């Protein structure tokens, strides 16, 4: 700030602009720090906290990332994807502190390839409960960009009116505070504002009194009184305070309005699992916008078209990595990894849970001989952001037909004609799904000729979305 003040106002504005400075890092997810005594500081965080920067290939070769000094070529030119996060532009040792950001950057790209919209989180189920995965599996949820839940700018009037709909609050969510934190917050933030709160109550009382006097004026046929004409005496205010104290609900309303507290669900609502006003009253408001900027899609209710088989009942199936198999004696459940996010394996009476599949089931055992690890075909159904900014995804098993079509798309299977029998040379398959598709298309269709006499479609154009 002191540096900015020594230059002209225009210069200071330019210096602090996005053009010349990187945005300040945001605080990390609260759950990342609370792994207890076990955890890795170098593990990928559950959401990015720093801006990811990129550069053109020609500039990257020269080490030019638009920063103060060129970055070393040895560490920045090896990766396929030019993505860096700069922790500090200039350290005391005269170096730029940076690290690769492909972990978060590619996760975003992979997620966007799934083409699933972000929906409002489930209101009544806590994030980690098994119910969260099992309940309302197939029901389409409301998008976070619907008019009644997407509020980014608020003025003081609709701040109160939209209390039960908005997601951002100035004050904390009291149910998520530890006793020590609460005591500290009360001492530091709340107690100094006592006179301000008295003034706030005075205005509320004045508004109340205005209403009653204007009603009286209407009855008597007198002119309407102004708000400025109402004078609240100290005795009246003390009397009002006494009345409020005997009515906990009303005083909570007042305090909540004054401190802009995030709404709380009543104990009855939590116990009975019933919905109340604000969708975030049970699990706390989210630390980010409920979409977290991951995707801006409004809906997944569109039809996919297949070049040969026509409109499809479902979206193309996706491969999910089995991050951890299910072992009952170790009391661990199966976890899948989809587009870089960990999610629960499909539950219930599904393909991967059938008894006759148990022996070959990659969800129940670890096959160390399998190159690249076990993967299963799934159908991602919904994604939402929880209070801690983590992505909660749901996926169900892909049906046999969906799996077959998806496999045919990448050239592993052939539905009509002969199956590709000859052992193919091992091609290292890497990259995102689109690049894999492209590689496969090149491999199985080198001359670009049409497949099985069908009209000329590239494999990439398999899905026509409308």
């Amino acid at each position, binding site marked *: 700030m002191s540096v900015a003040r020594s230059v002209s106002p225009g210069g200071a504005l330019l210096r602090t602009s996005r053009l010349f400075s990187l945005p300040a890092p945001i605080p990390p997810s609260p759950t990342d720090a609370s792994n207890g005594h076990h955890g890795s500081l170098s593990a990928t965080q559950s959401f990015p906290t720093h801006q990811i920067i990129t550069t053109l290939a020609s500039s990257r070769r020269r080490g030019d990332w638009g920063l103060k000094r060129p970055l070393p070529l040895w560490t920045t030119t090896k990766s396929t994807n030019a993505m860096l996060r700069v922790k500090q532009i200039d350290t005391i040792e005269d170096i730029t502190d940076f690290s690769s950001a492909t972990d978060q950057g590619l996760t975003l790209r992979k997620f966007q390839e799934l083409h699933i919209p972000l929906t409002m989180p489930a209101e009544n189920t806590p994030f980690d409960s098994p119910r969260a995965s099992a309940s309302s599996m197939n029901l389409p949820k409301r998008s976070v960009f619907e008019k009644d839940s997407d509020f980014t700018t608020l003025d003081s009037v609709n701040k109160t009116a939209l209390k039960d709909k908005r997601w951002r609050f100035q004050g904390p969510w009291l149910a998520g505070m530890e*006793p*020590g934190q609460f*005591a500290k917050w009360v001492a530091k933030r709340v107690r100094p504002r006592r006179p301000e709160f008295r003034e706030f109550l005075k205005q509320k009382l004045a508004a109340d009194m205005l209403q009653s006097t204007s009603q009286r004026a209407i009855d008597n046929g007198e002119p309407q009184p102004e708000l400025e004409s109402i004078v609240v005496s100290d005795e009246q205010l003390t009397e009002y305070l006494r009345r409020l104290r005997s009515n906990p609900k009303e005083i909570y309303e007042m305090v909540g309005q004054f401190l802009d507290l995030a709404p709380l669900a009543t104990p009855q609502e939590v116990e009975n699992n019933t919905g109340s006003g604000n969708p975030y009253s049970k699990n706390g408001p989210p630390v980010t916008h409920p979409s977290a900027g991951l995707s801006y899609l409004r809906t997944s209710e569109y039809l996919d078209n297949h070049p040969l088989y026509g409109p499809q009942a479902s979206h193309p199936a996706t491969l999910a990595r089995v991050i951890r198999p299910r072992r009952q004696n170790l009391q661990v459940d199966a976890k899948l990894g989809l587009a870089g996010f960990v999610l629960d394996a499909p539950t219930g009476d599904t393909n991967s849970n059938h008894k006759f599949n148990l022996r070959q089931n990659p969800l129940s055992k670890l096959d160390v001989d399998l190159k690249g690890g076990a993967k299963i075909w799934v159908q991602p159904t919904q994604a939402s952001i929880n209070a801690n900014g983590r992505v909660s995804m749901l996926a169900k098993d892909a049906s046999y037909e969906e799996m077959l079509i998806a496999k045919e798309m990448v050239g592993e299977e052939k539905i009509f004609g002969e199956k590709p029998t000859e052992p193919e040379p091992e091609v290292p398959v890497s990259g995102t799904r689109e690049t894999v598709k492209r590689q496969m298309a090149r491999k199985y269709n080198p001359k670009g000729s049409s497949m099985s006499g069908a009209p000329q479609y590239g494999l990439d154009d398999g899905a026509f979305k409308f």
Partner: protein
Amino acid sequence: MSSRQWLSSALRQAQTVVSRPAPLQRLSISTTSPAAALRNLPNSNSRSTPAGRLTSLGDGGPRPSSNEVLRDYMPTGQHRSRQGDGDRAAIKDMAQLHETDSYMKMIARRWKKGDVYAPRDLSPVEMRRWKLWNESQGDAVDLLGFNPLDNYRNMALISEFITPFGRIMNRKESGLRPVNQRKMAKAIRRAIALGLHPSVHKHPQLLLHRRGGVPSTSLHPSSSAPRL
């Protein structure tokens, strides 16, 4: 399910053989047929026989995988072929489950829903870091807002801040700031001096109810947080 149980016990027995090679005749595991094959082990030390391979494991020879060892015990011959197919599959199954359990111990990270991973997060280097014991991140007393001196009778709390041999935990381990560390140490000394808490181990009531290395009794300090 039951077949898996005896198979896993058979494998465990096979491992016992590895560590204690001398009296092979004493093996008697089960009456079912593949185990009966185990019982009729030839008492020989040559590496060509299955038992020989098992017994030679300890003396530095090339170690066959558990699959290989089990394959040697699979029934052979025409009269057993029909039953053998099922058994072979079951044994392979069992070996794989055993392998899964062993590898699962190396997956130190308890993956949670919503975690983000890059290929590096699945690497052994990263997994090793999840196994390490890190210093405590925050001050529990400040977070919960209680006075340790008021809680000298809270045995769950006192036991939480002493080592298994009854010494007051170091500041690095407890994660408390100096003021709270002094108060907590005083509370522990007070509890021991009053004869309320043993001085060389954690409270026996808590040791009784340990589940998986973690005391099942949770920490409930009496709060002295100011009320509004």
